[in-house]
């Protein structure tokens, strides 16, 4: 009796803290990746609309692939080696064709930490993205292991080896175009499928989730979003696959992202010109129209911490 009780307490000590909050926690080791078709020969594997957390395996990214008779292209490889392996297996269940290439749309960890599983395939990123992965990969790995624990087992930062030069190409009847934009990071790669009118928007677009801004340049990002708005308005883009948040039609995510960025810019400029300290800005209320968005408090704190010092410094020289 005593033995059974102590055993129960022991196992609870290990597990209760990890998973008690969310009923739908994944068992560690299985991401349960299920490709969903969103257009002809086009699939996404959707991540949780949330922040990095052990209960979701730190899988908050949407990866995607276009699988045609001529071969397959894969977009983003997820947060860990394990994700990359399970992504590869999931894609092979959908299509027996060869994977011609894998692309990482920017330098953030969940865009490329699954690259280890694609070691025998060409993995592409923009030049600036490759340099960023090399420079920051190790720090990302430290952080991801801290946040995600066992999900990361065996993962090592493995930057893209091939440099992608933006261009148009045809794959199994799809007219595709790689385009370089910027603002979320210094090099934001997007893939436009002119045939299906699907845009793989990478980190430039967030839907129902607060954008992450550790490498953001707000004015450039807003300029890129105006370009995307134009593509939607002209009918070039119908379906948007953001890296974080649900796949959607039209300007929904682009407009949400623009709303957040312009609101944040305004908040930071006003606060700095009033003389508020960082501590005070962190505690200002956030308008209710953002209250349903995932990761609201965490991303607000993160963004203000990294961006506000520049606004504060600028008001000294006025």
């Amino acid at each position, binding site marked *: 009796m005593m033995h059974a009780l102590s055993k129960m307490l022991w196992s609870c000590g290990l597990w209760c803290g990890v998973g008690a909050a969310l009923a739908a926690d994944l068992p560690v080791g299985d991401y349960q990746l299920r490709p969903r078709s969103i257009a002809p020969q086009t699939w996404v594997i959707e991540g949780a609309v949330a922040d990095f957390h052990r209960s979701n395996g730190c899988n908050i990214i949407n990866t995607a692939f276009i699988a045609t008779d001529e071969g397959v292209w894969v977009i983003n490889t997820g947060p860990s080696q394990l994700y990359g392996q399970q992504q590869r297996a999931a894609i092979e269940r959908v299509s027996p064709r060869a994977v011609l290439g894998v692309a990482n749309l920017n330098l953030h960890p969940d865009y490329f930490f699954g690259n280890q599983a694609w070691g025998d395939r060409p993995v592409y990123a923009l030049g600036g993205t490759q340099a960023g992965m090399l420079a920051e990969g190790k720090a990302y790995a430290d952080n991801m292991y*801290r946040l995600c624990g066992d999900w990361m087992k065996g993962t090592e930062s493995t930057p893209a080896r091939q440099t992608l030069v933006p261009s148009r190409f045809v794959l199994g009847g799809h007219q595709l175009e790689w385009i370089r934009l910027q603002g979320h990071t210094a090099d934001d790669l997007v893939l436009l499928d002119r045939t299906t009118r699907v845009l793989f928007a990478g980190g430039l677009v967030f839907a129902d989730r607060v954008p992450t801004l550790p490498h953001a340049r707000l004015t450039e990002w807003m300029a890129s979003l105006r370009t995307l708005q134009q593509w939607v308005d002209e009918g070039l883009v119908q379906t948007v696959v953001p890296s974080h948040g649900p796949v959607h039609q039209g300007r929904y995510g682009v407009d949400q992202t623009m709303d957040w960025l312009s609101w944040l810019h305004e908040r930071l400029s006003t606060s700095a010109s009033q003389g508020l300290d960082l501590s005070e800005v962190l505690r200002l209320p956030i308008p209710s129209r953002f209250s349903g968005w995932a990761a609201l408090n965490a991303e607000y704190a993160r963004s203000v911490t*990294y961006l506000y010092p520049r606004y504060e410094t600028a008001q000294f020289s006025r």
Partner: protein
Amino acid sequence: MQWPTIQSRFMGKAPSTVTSDVIVKGPEFAEDAMNVPILIDARALARRAGPIERIVVVADRNPIQHILDFEPMRSWPVLAFRFRMEQSSPVRALVRTQDGRWHVGQTWVNAAGGGCTVPGASRADGSWSRTLNQVQARVFKNLLEGGTRLRLRIMHPMDTGLVGGIPAFYIEQLELRDSLEQPVWRLHLHEPVSENPLLTLELGEQLQGPWHLLGRDNNGNRIDERLPT
């Protein structure tokens, strides 16, 4: 448990009480371990227990626990600043009123850490030497009712001495004087205060500028700056 050591080190055998009249605000999580923003407000304590002699700010689990001492003198007992954190820790303001009693306000900040043991940006790229001890300042009115807020930025690498090959190099003393050259407040900074310290103080409504800032770092470099009003 570092708390008993901190008590005897900074407050000796004097009794202390924990009070909500000393507000210490930090972030829940230190997103940037090299710039953790802390705001201290002991006005409620001053109203209840009389004038404040000094405020000692410490982080229990930092390799250098002592962050700064603040003597509010004729300004308000309000101070905002940033510091470097090595790991998650309590952050405490130990406040001594003029009657000799100690009052403690505190908060807890979680951190991935490492902020004390990596060089700051201006040390890493060598640019610190071109701007050393340059002062920027600006005054804002009425952020707190009746307040005169002084925001101050002093260019200094504030090396902790915990990065290999870089000895401790930091601003030790700052004093603000009013138009009559009378001291308004004094600060004694220590190694954990962030690079290029950005300080926010409240000067109240009575005192008059133009303000005069005096100070020095631990290498004897002086700060002597007339601030714009």
